[in-house]
């Protein structure tokens, strides 16, 4: 499994993570054929404390799918940041994951973006598989 982020998408996800630090950022990833063309920032609407959680509400999810349709792209997954934590999925991420989506996580340590990783839920929901992330134009 692999996912490709354009340079602009990679930069946008990292910038979003820095901007919301120490809170988590989140957004949708739109693209085609495994290449993310657009990072679509969404509001983090969690009520459990945005330092450790993010939530994209159904209305915002619908907007993301709508936008993908209009741009003739697919919704490939979502990204979020882990402020002051490594870019590995938490148990909470696993419990709330949807199949077939790519979950990109960027670690933001002390306000600086660090490692960016991508993950897909295994078919039996027991764990994530890490995907190779490549950068495209």
């Amino acid at each position, binding site marked *: 499994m692999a996912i490709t982020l354009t340079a602009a998408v990679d930069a946008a996800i990292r910038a979003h993570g820095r901007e919301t*630090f*120490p*809170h*988590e950022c*989140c957004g949708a990833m739109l693209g085609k054929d495994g290449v993310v063309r657009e990072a679509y920032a969404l509001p983090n609407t*969690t009520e*459990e*404390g945005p*330092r*450790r*959680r*993010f*939530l*994209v*509400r*159904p209305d915002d*999810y*619908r907007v993301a*799918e709508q936008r*993908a349709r209009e741009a003739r792209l*697919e*919704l490939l997954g*979502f990204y*979020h940041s*882990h*402020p*002051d*934590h490594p870019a590995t*999925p*938490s*148990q*909470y*991420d696993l419990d*709330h*994951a*949807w*199949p*077939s*989506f790519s*979950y990109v996580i960027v670690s933001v*340590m*002390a*306000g600086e973006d660090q490692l960016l990783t991508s993950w897909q839920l295994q078919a*039996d*929901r027991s764990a994530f598989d890490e995907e190779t992330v490549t950068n495209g134009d």
Partner: protein
Amino acid sequence: MATKILIPTPLRPFTDKLDAVDIDGATIGELLHNLTTKYAGLKQHLYAADGKLRSFVNIYVNDDDIRYLQKDQTPLKPGDTVSIIPSVAGGAPTEVIKEQEALPELSGDEVKRYSRHLIMPEVGLEGQRKLKAASVLCIGAGGLGSPAAMYLAAAGIGKIGIVDFDVVDFSNLQRQIIHGTPDVGRAKLASAKDRLNALNPNVQVETYDEALSSENAMRLFAPYDVILDGTDNFPTRYLVNDACVLSGKPNAYGSIFRFEGQASVFATKDGPCYRCLYPEPPPPGLVPSCAEGGVFGVLPGIIGVIQATETIKLILGAGEPLIGRFLIYDALRMRFRELKLRKDADCPVCGTHPTVTKLIDYEQFCGVAPHQVAAAAPPVTSMDALSSIELKAELDRGDEVVIVDVREPQEFQINRLPGSILIPLGDLPKRYVELDPNANIVTQCKSGMRSAKAQDFLRSKGFTKVRNLTGGVLGWVDQVDPSQPKY
């Protein structure tokens, strides 16, 4: 009757890639049952093990969430469209202590060393391994940090970090028991590290020779599980609190003054933080420091060990932590009191709508000039201040100078300037009338801070010639009269 169900992108692999399917059913419950019978792969993603819809799965009939209709029993009419809409959620790990990771094994020597822990079920082998896996950062190796770090090391905490930039002074030894008489003049970090290594060589001791600041706090805190606040000033106390909240790490808090100490555990996930209790710092100068007001030497022993106790309990997950409780200890009366604390929803840093989302300038926040405490006496020639050398020259010339010592009587007994009048700072508002407003006055204290306040006060009362003695009596002893003792 068939109803159209819109399938979201991530579930389409389970519906033969269709983005909409037609399924029969009179109610939502029936409809979803029939859907997951036809497309069995959907089931585990829509339903949890207990057979209920997963919390992040939202079912809409047209534009309404079934949670606000009749849930499973929501009836369907011809022409309705049902949508399965994901909530997308996630987040970073919240565990204080890494229970998920494999705990380190204990060596034979360690089993022997910790045997009194191991035979108690509240600690036991697993608890001792948790302590070994844990890391604690002590802010300061002074009165509170000394006993706390020593007991943490003795208890077998795997990694202890210490942040300090000070040097051991004779006046520290009355309470900072991690340092000994031969350590005077050494860096506190070096002295503390030697002591902890001697106490327990299994402990990894990391030292950080820097003043904690808004620039380095998040970096320093990142590798630690619990932060132990042993600071002696308000800017650093607020900095430690905010950095703990922002990095999600508990703050084992303690503070001491004269005969009274305080302790609590702040910044846990659901508990209050220091700012819930004190949103704003006291006006600068209202609360004297230990250097100014003194401290009972055994007091930090009690409070520092309470902080260590709470730290160890947090790591073990044992007992009732001092979260939401504020402990006040009075050594003279030998009494403990406890105040209840609540997390403040309006707290500027840990409330529901925080206004402090990154570290700020804490010197400014607390209204003190940067490095005021450590300010060395600069050469001064202004109308505001003078040095001991200059004062000596004026006295030798026979100038008429009224030296007002604003320290406490006990301090005055230790050392003093010749001919000085003692009016403690707290008495000045009722005793300034004893002074001639046109006299040539020099205010003086131990190091120059209290006397600067006295200078401001006298000027506000119309005194025209008031200068502050830079460096206080300590400067006088250093530069003019080394025969007197320093404290």
